[in-house]
């Protein structure tokens, strides 16, 4: 089975990236994601139901033998994402077939 890792540097696309990782996990891939920079509280906590929805997505991803990591500690505390370091993330990337920076900015920074 293929291994895929989503890197999510963009705040706007982080939750969509988690959902995309889940989609590949459902298709029998080992799928992982990592929120690179942003506090997801701003994008997902305004609605309690939406926060629970996103946390359920992460748990579902784990049930499918994937995981969702975070570099910012706040996401581990608020959303239950797995805390990791940049060095650990780099080592994880060496073990996967496909690395997908998800939702990155255009070349003109827009």
């Amino acid at each position, binding site marked *: 089975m293929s291994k895929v890792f989503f890197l999510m540097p963009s705040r706007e696309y982080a939750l969509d990236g988690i959902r995309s990782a889940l989609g590949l996990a459902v298709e029998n891939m080992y799928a992982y994601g990592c929120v*690179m920079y942003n506090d997801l509280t701003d994008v997902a906590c305004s609605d309690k139901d939406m926060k629970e929805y996103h946390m359920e997505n992460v748990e579902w991803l784990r049930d499918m033998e994937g995981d969702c990591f975070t570099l910012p500690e706040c996401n581990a505390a608020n959303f239950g994402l797995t805390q990791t370091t940049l*060095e650990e*993330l*780099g080592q994880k*990337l*060496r073990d996967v077939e496909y*690395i997908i*920076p998800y939702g990155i*900015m255009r*070349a003109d920074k827009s």
Partner: protein
Amino acid sequence: MKVLHVMRSAEINDDVKKLKEIVSADRENTEFNLAVEAPDYAKLVDMVWEADQTICWW
């Protein structure tokens, strides 16, 4: 393992540099820069086919 690193930005941040360094270790690496006036996309396609893995960094 041949790894192709596609660089979208002329200036990459320290995190990308670090990740690229770790992923590149003990591997055959090539690089293609998209942040130029006229990228050679035909060459990029050939490089993608030649590589075992392609990573597009931000």
